[in-house]
């Protein structure tokens, strides 16, 4: 029989039966060495769980930051004597700018009222009472932006505008009439950037750790079956046939580990979410369903990829002819 026909025969007749054989063998091995396999499953489970916590956590943080970012506004204070028509004209002009989402006029009375409410804990009533009926708080235009990161550009644009200078609270120095919490905004953006980078780095590290662990576990399983592999090679089993059960074992362990990780993430989130929402009511703890599903799908994929590659790489040195 020539080698070519033998090979053809083998590939045709072996592929389907090989898959079944691999899974059967892997199952048998998992039953027999359940403690080792449990170790691998727990390792994968914990790694994927922590990865999942980081993915969901960072998406939660960016949601929170997003809701804070939405509140980044520019306040342009107006002089008390500003012509109402000029203010209206200017309001619609600013609204026409590309980055501006909305422009709201806040009157002196509204501003004072807001001051009273937000400062209620700090003797605002006394302070207001001490004003003797005068209202020192200027009226303002509150400008919301499409992209909060562009806040500085837009603010500078307003400061440089002659039309604004005419109605500004302090016409001689327009810059001091425009406020947008420069430092706060800058800090917020740098913090969110750091959080995103740290989450990405940690996820990469955890993937690596999970990979090393499963690689090691599979290597243990292989070492335990060195003789068997030696005999398989002796009788002419092809490399893919020898690899099959181990790769299947890695994949099964990874699959079980990732399902466990998903279940505990879901259970943990269901338990934690009401408590968080109760204690921090001003923040929104909503995760988009597509984010959650995407996270779970990527955990399963990640687990299976880690399992497949971990075992395939661990097998490599035993398959050198």
């Amino acid at each position, binding site marked *: *029989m020539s080698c070519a026909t033998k090979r053809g025969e*083998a590939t045709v007749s072996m592929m389907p*039966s090989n898959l079944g054989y691999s899974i059967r063998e892997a199952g048998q091995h998992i039953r027999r060495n359940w403690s080792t396999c449990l170790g691998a499953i727990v390792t994968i489970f914990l790694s994927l769980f922590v990865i999942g916590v980081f993915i969901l956590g960072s998406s939660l943080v960016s949601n929170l930051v997003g809701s804070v970012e939405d509140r980044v506004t520019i306040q342009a204070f107006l002089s008390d004597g500003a012509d109402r028509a000029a203010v209206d004209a200017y309001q619609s002009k600013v609204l026409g700018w590309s980055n501006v989402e909305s422009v709201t006029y806040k009157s002196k009375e509204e501003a004072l009222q807001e001051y009273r409410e937000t400062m209620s804990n700090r003797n605002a009533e006394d302070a207001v009472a001490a004003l003797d009926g005068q209202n020192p708080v200027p009226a303002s235009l509150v400008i919301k932006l499409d992209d909060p990161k562009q806040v500085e550009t837009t603010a500078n644009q307003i400061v440089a505008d002659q039309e604004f200078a005419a109605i500004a609270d302090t016409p001689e120095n327009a810059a001091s009439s425009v406020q947008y919490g420069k430092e706060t905004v800058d800090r917020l953006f740098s913090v969110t950037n750091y959080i995103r980078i740290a989450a990405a780095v940690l996820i990469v590290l955890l993937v690596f750790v999970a990979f090393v662990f499963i690689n090691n576990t599979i290597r243990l399983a292989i070492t335990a079956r060195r*003789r068997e592999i030696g005999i398989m090679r002796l*009788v*002419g089993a*092809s490399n893919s046939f020898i690899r099959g059960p181990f790769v299947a074992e890695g994949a099964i362990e990874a699959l079980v580990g990732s399902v466990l990780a998903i279940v505990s993430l879901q259970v943990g989130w269901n338990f934690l979410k009401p408590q968080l929402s109760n204690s921090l009511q001003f923040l929104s703890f909503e995760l988009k369903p597509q984010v959650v599903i995407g996270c779970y799908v990527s955990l399963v994929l990640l687990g299976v990829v880690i399992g497949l590659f971990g075992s395939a790489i661990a097998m490599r040195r035993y398959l050198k*002819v």
Partner: protein
Amino acid sequence: MPSHFRDTEQQGVPDVITGGPEPVQTITASTDIARSEGSAVDAPASGSLYAPLESKGKVVPRTGTPTISLRGVTLIYPAQPNKPALDDVSLDIYPGDFVFVVGHSGSGKSTFLRLLTREIKATKGDVIVAGQNLTKMRNWKVPYLRRQIGTVYQDFKLLPDKTVYGNVAFALECIGKPRSVIEAQVPEVLRLVGLAEKMDNFPDQLSGGEQQRVSVARAMVNRPPLLVCDEPTGNLDPAISLGIMKLLDRINQTGTTVVMATHDREMVDSMRRRVVALEAGHVVRDQERGGYGFYDAL
């Protein structure tokens, strides 16, 4: 009683290895032979122990295509770059031959056998087995080569957690044979080696000789045209060794080429078959009807 073995032989396994010029002898009533053979081995006092072997002194004509052909083969292990394990060895082994490879430890016997199964690659020269040049063979083809070579080792290499049947069946499972073939062939070959009754025993429930017969059965279950044995009787007592020897001899009678490395002087002397003696990596003697040492060459 028709056997699988005879069936294949009658179809003439169209292969370079078995396609010898001489019509191969077939096993008749393999079951009965195996049974009597098995009892002879298990009870050394039964008298058949020193009976002459069937093929004593048989010479295979050196014609046709050799099963194994070594052409100027040199093998240098990286650990010993100045002392080649085999040095410019050229050798032809023809289909149906039974060759003893003798020599001291370290003379290159095992290296020679490992070249045949391509566990190692020759540093220089060509090793041609079954018409394929192993020196140039791609790694992925090696498993398909090994399916055509049965191997028997001193340490049996059985799997302790599989039964006798399981161990032999494993060899067929590994190369993707369907269940029906396995179920037909395994009991057949176990009858051949006289272990039909011990099919469901585990290796540690068997004696050394029985374990070695299981490993012979495993080597033969795929009916390879070439059988390579590395000191198969190395740790068996003389009586049991003779039983194994007779088994190998009978396998050789079916046309299988057998290459066997051994230290067993008595065995080599009693068989009077071809002897290749190695010494420090050189073939120092290649003799038909040879003996273990020079002094008893015919």
